[in-house]
């Protein structure tokens, strides 16, 4: 059984439909990419899964339980963690406090010191910066904090929304290396990206979204050479 | 009968009824209640120009009522100028002051703006309470100003009966409502609404949002000050705490919010809903249960905000649309 399965959901902003009968699944241990142009509904999809947006119809199942239209805090409790687009750090709090807030839910809070050590191991940069205010970090470092904060919640499924956004190529590379390491620990990852190459090379499977629908899906290796993607992005 | 004809007929009928009322209601007490009702509807309509259409929340409008009352009274008491002329002078001063405080404050976000207007109004009140006279001009500090009885005189804006006051405020109300109606259908109204709702988009369409807000502020303050003179002539007495205090400012805002901010009928509907409540609870329950009417006020305000955040006007308008559709036999509008 899939860890996460989204079935035929419709999502609206007011009266405007942004997701249209979309379905997808993520299996335990997988890395799945969602790619697509601006306005395709990628971020909305993640927000819907994590409970920030309501679905009008359809279902979302996580670990066998229906979670659609539940508030975000209970969805996090179940282990479905969303690292939002644009990092969204608590800008005036220290790196350590940001990470600690990541472990807010009870289950994670109990073992937060242990998790924190693991996160610092994975992202040694953050250990150096732990007492610095989040807003004073560079973009790449901020993204590291955002990912670390997500890990602090002990995710059963980690959803990342455009972690490479606005970063210089060298930083993009290091972010994806970090994601690789996270995936290697067996964490299931659902990744929304516009860096097609990087994300697909990291993933097991991928979905291409257009207009709130799945236009294409399949093993990442197949998608990476698919002409459709090139045309969607470059108009060729 | 078309919808337009129906609207016109009812409107003319309503205005006619208003003008005919003093023929039937002779009790000065009830006339006074109606006068105050119109007075509040007028003030709220004037407030609505900036508080409703320009999309901010001014909570210190009493200061402009005060400017109107003080200007005309000082001019008539000390210099023998007719209050009618003083009324205009007060309006001009109020408009000027309005622009003066509007300029820096319109940059601010909602809560700051509201706080700023409160602080300004309270600051002025405290100042007036501390000033006995400025040179030859007697302000009288906290004691306020009394207008001597001069008997029935149109020129002196004094009448021994309520009817003239009734017709003056009714006319003022009708004019200001007509003005709002006219503005809301003119470029000014479109620009104000656009600037209030999406300032950035409005600016991109060539609208100097701040300037239009200032214009609306000036108009609102001018009109508010006129009511100040009316009030002074009706009561023949006023003092800073009563006239400039926060209670009046808040009541104006409450009426607008409950009636429907930014709508033409909102202030009138709000005043119709709240004023009689105010008067009757005070008269019949006042000494037994002081404060009851304000508890009811507050409760209504909370309930309206919880269940009809746009005020009472939209649901009433829908009701009216249904009613009109039945009468005219046309389908529901829009």
């Amino acid at each position, binding site marked *: 059984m899939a860890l996460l399965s989204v079935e035929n959901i419709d999502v609206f902003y007011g009266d405007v439909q942004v997701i249209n009968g979309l379905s997808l699944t993520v299996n335990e241990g997988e890395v799945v990419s969602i790619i697509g142009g601006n306005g395709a509904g990628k971020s909305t999809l993640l927000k819907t899964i994590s409970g920030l947006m309501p679905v009008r119809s359809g279902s979302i199942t996580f670990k066998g339980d229906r979670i659609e239209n539940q508030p975000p805090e209970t969805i996090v409790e179940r282990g479905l963690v969303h690292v939002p687009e644009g990092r969204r750090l608590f800008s005036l709090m220290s790196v350590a406090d940001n990470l600690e807030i990541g472990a807010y839910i009870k289950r994670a809070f109990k073992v937060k010191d242990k998790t924190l050590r693991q996160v610092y191991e994975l992202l040694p940069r953050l250990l150096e910066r732990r007492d610095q205010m989040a807003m004073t970090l560079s973009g790449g470092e901020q993204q590291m904090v955002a990912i670390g904060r997500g890990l602090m919640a002990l995710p059963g499924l980690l959803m990342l929304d455009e972690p490479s956004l606005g970063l210089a190529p060298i930083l993009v590379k290091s972010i994806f290396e970090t994601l690789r390491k996270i995936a290697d620990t067996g964490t299931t990852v659902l990744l929304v990206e516009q860096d097609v190459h990087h994300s697909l090379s990291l993933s097991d499977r991928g979905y291409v979204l257009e207009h709130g629908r799945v236009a294409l899906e399949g093993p990442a290796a197949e998608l990476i050479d698919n002409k459709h993607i090139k045309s969607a992005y470059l108009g060729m | 009968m078309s919808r337009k004809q129906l609207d016109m007929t009812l*409107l003319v009928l309503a205005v006619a*009824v*208003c003008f005919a009322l003093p023929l039937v209601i002779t009790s000065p007490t009830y006339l006074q209640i109606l006068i105050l009702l119109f007075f509040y509807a007028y003030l709220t309509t004037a407030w609505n120009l900036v508080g409703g259409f320009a999309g901010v929340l001014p909570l210190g409008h009493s200061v402009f009522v005060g400017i109107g009352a003080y200007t005309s009274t000082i001019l008539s008491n000390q210099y023998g100028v007719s209050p009618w002329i003083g009324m205009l002078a007060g309006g001009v001063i109020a408009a000027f002051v309005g622009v003066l405080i509007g300029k820096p404050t319109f940059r601010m976000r909602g809560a700051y703006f509201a706080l700023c207007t409160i602080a300004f109004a309270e600051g002025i009140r405290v100042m007036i309470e501390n000033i006995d006279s400025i040179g030859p001009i007697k302000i009288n*500090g906290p004691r306020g100003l009394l207008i001597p009885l001069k008997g029935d005189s149109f020129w002196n804006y004094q009448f021994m009966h309520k009817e003239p006051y009734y017709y003056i405020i009714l006319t003022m109300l009708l004019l200001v409502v007509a003005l709002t109606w006219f503005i809301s259908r003119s470029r000014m109204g479109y620009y104000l609404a656009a600037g209030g709702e999406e300032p950035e988009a409005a600016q991109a369409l060539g609208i100097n949002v701040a300037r239009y807000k200032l214009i609306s502020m000036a108009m609102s303050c001018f009109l508010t000050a006129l009511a100040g003179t009316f009030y002074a002539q009706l*009561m023949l007495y006023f003092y800073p705490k009563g006239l400039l205090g926060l209670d009046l400012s808040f009541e104006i805002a409450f009426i607008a919010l409950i009636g429907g901010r930014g709508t033409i009928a909102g202030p009138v*509907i709000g005043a119709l809903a709240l004023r009689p409540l105010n008067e009757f609870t005070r008269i019949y329950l006042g000494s037994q249960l002081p404060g009851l009417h304000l508890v009811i006020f507050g409760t209504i305000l909370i309930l309206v905000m919880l269940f009809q955040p746009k005020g009472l006007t939209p649901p009433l308008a829908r009701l009216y649309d249904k009613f009109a559709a039945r009468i005219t036999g046309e389908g529901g509008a829009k």
Partner: protein
Amino acid sequence: MSYASIGKRLLGLAAIGLLTAGLSGPAFAQKTIKIGNVEPLSGPSASVGVQGKQAREMAVEEINKNGGIKSLGGAKLELVYADSKSDPTVGVTETERLINTEKVQLMTGCWNSAVTYPATQVAERYGVPFVVPVAVRDTITERGFKYVFRIAAKDSWWVRDQFRFLKDMQDETGVKLKTMALVFENGDWGTGFAEKWRALAKKDGYELVLDEPYPSTASDLTPVVTKLKAANPDIVMLVSNAADAILITNTMAEMKVKPKVTVASGGGHADPKFLENAGKNALYLFDEVEWNTDVNKPGAKETNAAFKAKYGYDLTGESVDAYVAMYVIADALERAASTDPEKVRAALAATKLSTGPAMICSYDSIEFDESGQNKNAGIVIVQVADVNGQLDRVTVWPKNARRAGYTPVFPANK
């Protein structure tokens, strides 16, 4: 358009509602004579308002029990109240309502000068006699009104007597006081007093070392008291409303400010709550009032005892004025033998009342001068003293009214 027309429609409906309400009032039987009273029954001055209300009720009960107005066939007096909330606007509106809707034949009220001032103008406009038991602003009776009469002294008299008292006491004790501080609430009443203090202080040769208004809603009066301490005056003149009287007295004690003489002007200092809360801090304070429980007049003790039994506290200057006002009205109605406003007015103007229950007041007769002011209205000064272990207000001035056996403590602090 549609919104506007709805508004107008509703307005019409409301008007019809009002209309029916207006017409349905019953015609009034002439068995009773209605007296309208506007008093602060809620708001900051509610406690004095209630005192005045209860004093009126007691007087009217007595009058009615004794046969009402005999020349009018034993007509009974009926009191109709309206609450001014100490707000002049409400006071004006309510006065108009009492006159127009309740059809009262006379008006009394309103304690607050700020309310009385415009409210009496309303009565004048409608030609309804208005008896002001207490409201001290001079100008209330100085506008050439025909229908306005005042029982209590006006503020220039209050101030005049405060200075007379100071002079008499200095003569009596041989103590010389030189410096004076004025501390007053910045409302209508306080600023009115201060204006006259300044003139008299100049005339009597006191040096003003502090002239300090303060807002009665101040959250802290320490700054004022600090200033007072620095000014170190011989005499402190005070005008305070209810709570600030307590606050200022306690703060003075706290800051160890001990002027030789402190003279208050009634109001907050005369409120029964004052002694209860200020306690010993108020010791040897002089307060100016119209009346005191120990006033040496026939019937005063008995009336006070009856009042206390009924309502649980002593009469005050304000309540005695209200009590007296009812007898003045009854007397005038009796002589007028009519409820015609013009005749009642004439009767009031001709008042010369020197007998009867009204004479619990501190002076011997009630007569109105041309302005409508009771020309005999008198004032006494009391001192807060420890009498047999209990704080009491003891009459000390005028000397002929002084409680037997009491020597004023003057100056209070050497």
